[in-house]
């Protein structure tokens, strides 16, 4: 029996899906900013800070990179309350995504920092700048320029990974799709639509990031 796809049945739920989409976008945006801030701090500390800080950061990075995001999410949402910390789904989602992106960007930015030629650092130090001033004015700029593509890719990966937050009932696009599917049982159609929405979002984000990169770094 050939099944006829019934996309029309999704129409009444357009507002639900749109809300989910917006939530996903906002979630990604906020987590990206926070995550990169964490990454910058982490990478800087790892390279220039005390040894023990470096070790802690490395442990954090390896832990996040070698465990699935969904497990991290469950740990934060289900596990932390047992230790006394109560979180709403939305907060838990933001936190998990920030921590996740933070770890990956720490690694990426660290690679960028190490790629800056030693001569530049030496020049800065010879001009009596402290290593933190050198970091801020000379290194980070170049490091970001170099790893911007890798960072952009990671942002998109994290955005696609955000679909998982639906599992703790955070009301993202996937949650909305689940909701619609439970109402009209058009599972395949709604998930296809959602998948394509994510795809469009990914492509848009990629273009936006590329354009942003050109503006920020004024391609020298």
């Amino acid at each position, binding site marked *: 029996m050939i099944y006829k796809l019934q996309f029309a049945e999704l129409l009444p739920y357009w507002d639900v899906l749109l809300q989910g989409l917006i939530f996903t976008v906002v979630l990604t945006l906020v987590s990206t900013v926070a995550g990169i801030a964490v990454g910058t701090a982490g990478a800087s500390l790892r390279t220039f800070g005390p040894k023990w800080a470096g070790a802690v950061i490395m442990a954090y990075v390896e832990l996040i990179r070698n465990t699935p995001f969904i497990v991290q999410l469950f740990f934060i949402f289900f596990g932390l309350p047992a*230790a006394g910390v109560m979180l709403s789904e939305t907060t838990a989602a933001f936190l998990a995504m920030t921590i996740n992106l933070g770890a990956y960007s720490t690694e990426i930015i660290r690679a960028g920092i190490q790629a800056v030629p030693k001569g530049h650092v030496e020049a800065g130090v010879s001009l009596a700048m402290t290593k933190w001033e050198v970091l801020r004015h000379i290194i980070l700029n170049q490091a970001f320029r170099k790893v911007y593509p890798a960072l952009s890719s990671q942002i998109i990966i994290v955005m696609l990974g955000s679909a998982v937050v639906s599992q703790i009932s955070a009301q993202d696009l996937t949650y909305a799709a689940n909701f619609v599917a439970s109402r009209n049982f058009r599972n395949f159609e709604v998930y296809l639509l959602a998948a394509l929405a994510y795809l469009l979002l990914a492509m848009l984000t990629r273009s936006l990031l590329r354009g942003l990169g050109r503006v920020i770094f004024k391609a020298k």
Partner: protein
Amino acid sequence: MLQFSFWDILSNLLIATQWTIILSLIAFVCGGIVGLILLFMRVSGVRPLEWFTKAYIEFFQGTPLLMQLFLFFFGIALFGVEVSPWMAATMALTFWTSAFLTEIWRGCVESIPKGQWEASTSLALTFVEQMRYVILPQASRIAIAPTVGFSVQVVKGTALASIIGFVELTKAGTMLNNATFRPFLVYSLVALIYFCLCFPLSWCAKKIEGRLNVAR
């Protein structure tokens, strides 16, 4: 209410871990085979094949793995076929893996100097012969590190199969959490087991890459 001791929890998790490992292996191997076919298509120079491969990669890399799992799970059912979570998970992960592996491998193939292609062309080798005897032997050396690195992503990806009901490590964790109400302990153990699976792979990949850079 059933009382679960620490060892009850751990042993149940470890049993489920077998399925994580099996699913990972199947996805990785099958994904690799499909990825290799796609690789030949992608670098063949035949336009329609290249476009198809590009679209395929764009779809599987540009949509959430969770969506792909849902689509396979509900999509196959539309054809009237009985689909188990196992089947949907295997298929989704295979195709997802193949998209990423083929891109990684394409990068390696494209890093081979053009002169190698020209020299082997001039010796009258066909495209397939060039790939087999000249390009792939060189590209595979470069490809080992990132491929091993990606295997970590595959293991982590299997965790999503829990959402469509496949009982692997994460699903076992969820079930145990529901039974014991000890999420901190359960999910810590789950994370630890994943770490034990993934960290050695990450470490290997890093070591191989390091050795390759020294050899150049």
